[in-house]
């Protein structure tokens, strides 16, 4: 036993938390991880499909930048994802795990659509837009407010609560479609798109959406970094006790932040119905409420970085669809590629926060 104890056993490597890493090094790590993701995807493509990966990546760019129309649509979808991501960010910064963005967006969609169906024809078109926008903001805010109130006063688990609210919102949409007969009761529940109450065309269908979200991005950046409320959010996120000690009313901050979070989700719902789809279904939000969590997290809750992360995700989504189409592969293949890329992007965060120390050889002097 004793002679074993004298030998110093050390694992081949161990993981150490980094103290701080300069921003440029962090970005080099991220760039390398994306590069490696591209390499792995290429190998997977060769092995599984026997296709030339250069052509495959060419198809990816074609899918995202192929025509002017596609580029506009790419930026529209980036904007919509970014909008939801901006919405969840203040709550996350506060460490309030709002997984209910999907439902909050859907409530915005439902409110927009219902307003147009019920008021359409009785008020002027600009007024109709304003009312439906207001309805969407309120609906989203209310859907955010409910779990916030329960959290603030009864300490309910906000993750589960907000998740469940998603299903309630989906159910409400199905119920409304059937109850109000927006579509044949015995039909497929696909509601025909609205002809009125649509966002005005400025240059094309997408510019208004893109500009609106650009404004929201700017607003959120300033709100989080340069306002008293933004500061309060950071403090509550760091430690509720500290916040209480320095006289911040945590309940108020939680409720106020979730109202803002929900309202911006409601806005995203308004843009989806009034700007993009013109119709409503339980799938209108298309998972953006969940993808947004990743966008926000990867960008470290920084609204400007979020532009980059949402661009990346939407780019790969568009590109992998085109790969599927050009090479007649099935949808699963594009999901494999997107999965690999996301895996590497998330993995890079590990290497930014931690470093791997190899077992020191006696020769190595450091």
């Amino acid at each position, binding site marked *: 036993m004793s002679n074993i104890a004298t030998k110093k056993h050390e694992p081949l490597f161990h993981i150490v938390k980094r103290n701080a890493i300069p921003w440029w090094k962090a970005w080099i790590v991220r760039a*390398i991880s994306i590069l490696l993701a591209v390499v792995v995807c290429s190998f997977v493509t060769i092995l599984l499909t026997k296709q030339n990966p250069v052509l495959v990546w060419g198809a990816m760019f074609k899918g995202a930048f192929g025509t002017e129309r596609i580029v506009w649509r790419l930026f529209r979808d980036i904007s919509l994802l970014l909008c939801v991501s901006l919405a969840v960010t203040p709550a996350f910064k506060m460490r309030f795990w709002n997984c209910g963005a999907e439902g909050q967006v859907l409530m915005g969609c439902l409110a927009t659509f219902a307003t147009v169906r019920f008021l359409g024809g009785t008020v002027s078109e600009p007024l109709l837009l304003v009312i439906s926008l207001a309805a969407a903001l309120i609906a989203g805010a209310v859907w955010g407010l409910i779990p916030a109130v329960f959290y603030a006063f009864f300490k309910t688990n906000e993750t589960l609560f907000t998740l469940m609210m998603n299903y309630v919102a989906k159910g409400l949409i199905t119920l409304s479609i059937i109850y109000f007969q927006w579509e044949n009761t015995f039909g497929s529940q696909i509601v025909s798109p609205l002809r009125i109450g649509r966002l005005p065309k400025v240059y094309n269908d997408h510019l208004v959406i893109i500009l609106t979200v650009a404004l929201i991005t700017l607003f959120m950046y300033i709100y989080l970094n340069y306002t008293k409320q933004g500061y309060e959010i950071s403090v509550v996120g760091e430690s509720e006790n500290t916040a209480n000690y320095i006289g911040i009313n945590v309940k108020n901050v939680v409720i106020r932040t979730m109202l803002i979070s929900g309202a911006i989700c409601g806005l995203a719902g308004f843009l989806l119905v009034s700007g993009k789809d013109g119709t409503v279904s339980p799938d209108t939000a298309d998972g953006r409420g969940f993808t947004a969590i990743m966008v926000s997290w990867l960008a470290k809750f920084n609204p400007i970085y979020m532009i980059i992360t949402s661009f990346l995700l939407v780019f790969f989504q568009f590109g992998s669809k085109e790969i599927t189409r050009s090479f007649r592969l099935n949808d699963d293949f594009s999901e494999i590629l997107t999965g690999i890329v996301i895996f590497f992007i998330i993995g890079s965060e590990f290497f930014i926060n931690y470093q791997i120390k190899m077992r020191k050889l006696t020769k190595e002097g450091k």
Partner: protein
Amino acid sequence: MKKFLSLLLVAALALTLTFSFVACSNETANGDEAGENNAEATNDIKVGFIFLHDENSTYDKNFIDAAVAVQNKLGLTNDQVIMVTGIPEGSECYDAAIDLIDQGCTLIFADSFGHEPFLLDAARENPDVQFCHATGTMAHTAGLANFHNAFASIYEGRFLAGIAAGMKLNEMIANGDFTAEEALIGYVGAHPYAEVKSGYTSFFLGARSVCPTATMEVQFTGSWYDEALEREAANVLIGRGAKLVSQHADSMGAPSACEEAGIPNVSYNGTTIEACPNTYIISSRIDWAPYFELMITAVQNGTEIPTDWCGGIKEGSVKLTDLNTAVAAAGTQEAIDAAKAQFEEGTLKVFATDTFTVGGVALDEETLADVDTDDTWTAETKVVSEGYYHESEFRSAPYFDINIDGITLLN
């Protein structure tokens, strides 16, 4: 810093590796505009197909297979036949159609019912492009020269498949497995609307034409494609005493539940014999190849595509897959062939009003159906005459949505 340099080097190495691999695998994948001066492509037609799911859905697979078959038959290249899968029933369908037009397509086809309003928008804005839509209902009232619907008289195929089911029930009764009164059929349906109702009613009438004591229970899943729900629905029906199960939903859920429980299954969309060798009897399906050929050659020749086309047994649109003789009752093929001949002669009608009742009485000639789609969903067309319900004659998509006696809806 050194570490970063070495990391960069590794990345660079890996990249070079990939590209050397590329050099090895120079398969001639289709370049962008390669189809232009291809000798085979004498006419430069480009067709775009929009599919709801990929080939993992039996519904879409049936369309995709037909499209590939027609592409090969007409000698078109992959550049001339562009297929887009996984397009939801929303504005994505419109976007997909516009993209296909940007790529030079002059004929666009979409396969799902819910694609219709979005495809219609694209058709309105692009009068020079032809649009064909399967299972839709709006072409005959839309007033657009370039928008067309198509379907098939699949209720006749269902009736024939129903005969196979009835024969099997008779065989099991004769074997003493259960009494004639216990001959319960289970049916897993997607949504409670005409396409499904017309389907299970014709299937039931086919079964009852040979097994008069048969009854049926229907369980809806509320989804066209949900393997877990379809499996569960089939198990519920089997638990309630169903002796045979059929389905109108697009996953393998119901057939595989039957295989596990050892309950005979009449399938849809195509054969399931590989996964279910011990329970699969027969399957009815629509073969879309005749329609695809019709629409493509019409555009090539500059002739009109019918506004609302309904293919039948004669056109080759309604097909039955091979009978699984290991499971089916003796004499099934002969019985099906006899009925098929009668359909082609026009002497047999699936919805003959003397074969079924509604609330104890037969349908009269005042019976209305919602043939023309409008905002209020009212039935406006008289559909019963000459002793039968005229399904798919006033419009290709089914409109028979009546609950007949003998069929119980569970949900």
